[in-house]
C-alpha cells in the first residue's frame, strides 16, 4: 500500500466514525446497526462474524461501548494509529455539540420557562434509568445469590453512599471466591453461562 492510499484510508476511517458519532442517539447499543452498515456492508473492512466478536468484547471491557467498539475496529483495520483516529472521529461530534449546548445552557439557566421544561423532564429521566436498570437486572440476575448481590448494591449505594468502584470490585471478588472455594457451584454457574452464550 503506498503512502497516499494509506492516508486516504485514515481519512475514510475518521469520516466514517465521525458519522457514527454524529448520527446515533441514545448511546452504545443504538450505534450497532449504523456501524454494521458503514463498516461491514459499505466499506467491507471487517466481516459480519468478526463484528459480533468486537461487540462482545466491547461490552465486557470497561468504558463506553461506543468508544470501545470504535477503538477496536480502528485497531483491526489500521493498527494503533487507526484506533486513535477512529476514537477521535466518534468522540468529536459529541465534544463540539455538547460544548455549544453547555455554553447556551449557562445563559438560559434561571429562565422560568426553561427551568419548568427541565423540571418536567427530570421524572422522565428517572423512568428511563429505572427501565434500563430493570432490563439489565433481568438479564444478569440468574439465581438467588445474584438477587442478593443486587439488593446489597442498592442498599450500599443509596443508604450508605459507598463508592460505586468498591461495590464493583466486591462483586468481582464474590465471583472469584466462588471459583476458588466452591468448585461445585462454580461449575454449575460456568456451564449455565456458556449455555446462555450458545443461545444468543
Amino acid at each position: 500500500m503506498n503512502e497516499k492510499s494509506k492516508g486516504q484510508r485514515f481519512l475514510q476511517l475518521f469520516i466514517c466514525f465521525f458519522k457514527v458519532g454524529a448520527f446515533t442517539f441514545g448511546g452504545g447499543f443504538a450505534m450497532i446497526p449504523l456501524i454494521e452498515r458503514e463498516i461491514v456492508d459499505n466499506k467491507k473492512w471487517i466481516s459480519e462474524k468478526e463484528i459480533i466478536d468486537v461487540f462482545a468484547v466491547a461490552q465486557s471491557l470497561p468504558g463506553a461501548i461506543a468508544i470501545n467498539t470504535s477503538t477496536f475496529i480502528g485497531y483491526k483495520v489500521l493498527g494503533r494509529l487507526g484506533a486513535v483516529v477512529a476514537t477521535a472521529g466518534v468522540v468529536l461530534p459529541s465534544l463540539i455539540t455538547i460544548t455549544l449546548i453547555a455554553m447556551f445552557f449557562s445563559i438560559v439557566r434561571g429562565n422560568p420557562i426553561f427551568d419548568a421544561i427541565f423540571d418536567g423532564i427530570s421524572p422522565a429521566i428517572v423512568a428511563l434509568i429505572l427501565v434500563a436498570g430493570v432490563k439489565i437486572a433481568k438479564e444478569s440476575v440468574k439465581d438467588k445469590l445474584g438477587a442478593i448481590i443486587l439488593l446489597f448494591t442498592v442498599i450500599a449505594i443509596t443508604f450508605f453512599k459507598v463508592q460505586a468502584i468498591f461495590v464493583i470490585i466486591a462483586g468481582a471478588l464474590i465471583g472469584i471466591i466462588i471459583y476458588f472455594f466452591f468448585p461445585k457451584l462454580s461449575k454449575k454457574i460456568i456451564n449455565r453461562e456458556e449455555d446462555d452464550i450458545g443461545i444468543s
Partner: protein
Amino acid sequence: MTLEYLRLFLSFFKIGLFSFGGGYAMIPLIQSENAMYNWISSSDLIDIIAISEMTPGPVAVNSATFIGYNAGGILGGIIATIGVTLPSLLLVLIVANVFFKFSKHPLKTMAFYGIRPVIAGLIISAALVVAETAFFKSGISLNETAENIFQLISLQNVFIFVLSLLLLLKTKINPVIIILISGILGVLI
C-alpha cells in the same frame, strides 16, 4: 486551576476505567465523583443526562464534556472527555489480543457473574438518587419540618414519572419523544 484540571482528568479516567456496561452504568460513578468535588448540582446532573439522551453520541462522552465544561470551561470539557476515553483506548491497544485469548477463561466468567448484578444494582440506585431530586420540590430541604409529607412531594412530577414509565413499558415510542413530552408537560401543568 492546573490542579483542578488534573482532578477532572483523574476522575473521568477513573469513571472510564471502572464503568462496565456503558452509558447508564456510568451515572452512579459520576454521582460518586461529583459528590466529592461538587462540580455541578444534582439537578444539573439530571439535566445533563437529559441533554445527553437528546443529543447524538455516547452518553458517557456527552456527560463528560458537559461536566468538564461546567467545571473548567472549554478546556475542562476537552480534558474530561479525553479522561473518559483514554482507558478504552489504552485497554484496547495493550490488552486486546490477550483479552481475546482469555475471553472464555472460567475465572473471567465468574468475575463477571459477580459484577453483572452489581451493575444492575448501580443503575437502579442511580434512578433512586435522581428520583430524590425529581420528586421533591426544589427549594425545600428535607431537614425542614413539614406538616404534611405531600406538601414536599411534587405531584406533577410523580404524574409525569408514571406516564413516562407506562409509555416506556407499553409502547415503542422513542425515549427522545418521551423526554420532549415531559418537558412540555413541565411547562403546562
